[in-house]
């Protein structure tokens, strides 16, 4: 098996909430481990408060991690310090942001946004800049490029802006792209055309993609593997189609039920993920339809589904996965 492009091991991120008498903290991520192989699309799925965006930002170098390691092609990313990755790693990881109305600078043209990364990472000489920018715009479906290249973001629609954001992220020819909810802010009618373009480019360039989303349908459509997060912890991870067709963790089952239009009431109880000063045990315990006393106190073991290819690829962090799986004894 080839070395993973991205190897996240036991990642933890906490935010200090201050507090005089009683210091309080928000645990955005806890013991998160997963990998992304070259050319693979991994979906990081969860609701608000699941920590998925925070994890994406750590990988892109915008946020320091508190514990754990993040390895990019074997090199460990620095966990402390301010913005940006070390110079030799910058350009290998790029990010597409969720809000097309906020991720482009209103005072600069489309040309500026795409030309800068090309220049910074020496993907084009100043002489061939315009031609390279035009080529990228055509690749993301903004055709003819001349119509868009000198416009400011305000003159573009949400879908068009997001295409510019994708072109910008692709300019340095990264190996890994972190896409933070790339279509969540777009009208449903344009989502598929943006995602289709994105998938085509991903396949053509054999890009590793970490797709952060709360939309299970697009995860199933685009991802090879899926990692399901709740309250900053990985609940289930495995082959995307299999996990979403026959989910084994009660939280994944809840997400799948909510995404379908079946009229039955949703399983479990409503609630919010416990991310502030959390107690030990399973974070989903207070909402889970299968909860038992052991779920609240004990460290939750990881069960591994048998007969997946490669072995150990489908893991569920639950005391009562469905159907019962042999324990792996790991973590």
């Amino acid at each position, binding site marked *: 098996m080839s070395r993973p492009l991205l190897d996240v091991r036991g990642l933890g991120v906490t935010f200090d909430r201050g507090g005089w008498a009683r210091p309080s903290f928000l645990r955005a991520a806890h013991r998160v481990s997963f990998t992304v192989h070259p050319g693979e699309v991994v979906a990081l799925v969860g609701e608000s408060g699941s920590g998925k965006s925070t994890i994406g930002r750590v990988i*892109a170098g915008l946020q320091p991690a508190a514990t754990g390691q993040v390895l990019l092609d074997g090199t460990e990313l620095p966990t402390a310090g*301010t913005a*940006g990755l070390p110079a030799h790693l*910058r350009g290998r990881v790029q*990010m597409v942001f969720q809000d097309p109305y906020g*991720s482009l*600078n209103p005072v600069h043209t489309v040309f500026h946004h795409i030309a800068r*990364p090309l220049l*910074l990472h020496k993907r084009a000489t100043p002489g061939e800049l315009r031609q390279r920018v035009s080529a990228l715009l055509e690749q993301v479906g903004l055709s003819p490029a001349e119509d868009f290249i000198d416009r400011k973001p305000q003159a573009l629609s949400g879908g068009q802006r997001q295409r510019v954001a994708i072109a910008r992220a692709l300019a340095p020819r990264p190996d890994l792209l972190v896409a933070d909810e790339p279509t969540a802010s777009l009208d449903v009618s344009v989502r598929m055309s943006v995602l289709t373009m994105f998938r085509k480019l991903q396949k053509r360039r054999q890009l590793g993609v970490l797709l952060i989303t709360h939309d299970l349908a697009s995860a199933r459509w685009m991802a090879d593997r899926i990692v399901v997060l709740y309250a900053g912890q990985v609940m289930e991870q495995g082959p995307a189609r299999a996990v979403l067709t026959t989910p084994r963790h009660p939280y994944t089952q809840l997400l799948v039920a909510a995404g379908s239009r079946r009229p039955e009431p949703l399983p479990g109880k409503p609630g919010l993920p416990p991310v502030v000063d959390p107690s030990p045990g399973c974070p989903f315990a207070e909402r889970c339809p299968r909860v038992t006393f052991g779920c609240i106190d004990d460290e939750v073991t990881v069960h591994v589904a048998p007969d997946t290819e490669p072995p150990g690829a489908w893991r569920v962090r639950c005391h009562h996965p469905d159907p019962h799986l042999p324990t792996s004894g790991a973590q």
Partner: protein
Amino acid sequence: MSVLWCHRQARVGLILLALMVLAVFVGPLFVGDPDAFVGRPLDPPSLSHLLGTTGQGQDVFAQTIVGGRTTLGLGLVVGLAVVMVGSVIGGLAGYIGGRVDDVLSFLINVFLVLPGLPLMVVLAAYLPAGPGSMAAVLILTGWAWNARVLRAQVASFRRRDFVEAAIVAGESPMRVLIVEILPNMASLLGGSVLGATTYAVGAQVGLEFLGLGDLGAVTWGTNLYWATNDSALLTGSWWTFVPTGTCVALTGLSLALINFGLDSVTNPALSADVGRGAPGPQPTPVRRST
């Protein structure tokens, strides 16, 4: 700039300021030596001396025109300098954050809390007289306010997606601050320069009026100082201080008008057409065409 021109009030302000700048920088070529003794002291305005004479027999008109050169000139320079110092310190504090921000914010707060006028008086009294000292005093007591405002703005922009995108794309921190963030703050910076200039002119005149400037120089502030010294009010010689006072007031007015225009450009809800009539939000108006 063209947008400002369209705004009625800003247009008036721009014209007024332009006229004054023209008058004080070109005018001195046409008036005589303001220090020269030209006639009977405290002579009211007449055909030979348009604005009369001072208590020393000097031409008030000449003094007013020539005085403006130093006052306005220094005012504009100090206004720019105050905003530049404030941008650098406030910008760095807002952008870098963390420890650097803690230290710089502390510095800003100390300068904000120091009582301005007494500090100005003390500094002006101890430093050698001259425009350099005046500039130093004004910049030292004026930079903190702008720094505070700009720090907050830069800090808020720092968190925006397009700034993070520039960082991920590999831009250096300096480039991000100067090329990505500052252009978005253009109108705030413009407004700050206008406000700082108003402050610089007013504070200058105030200090000199108290006798803390270079008394040998001809500036608006010293004009007022000498007018008081020569008991202008007691003798009823209004012409010795009203022209200078009016010029200072007009300067402030023109800068304020330009600032209104700048506000409208950034916040269209403040446009002149809105809210004619009742205050507060109104229901959508209905206009029927037959």
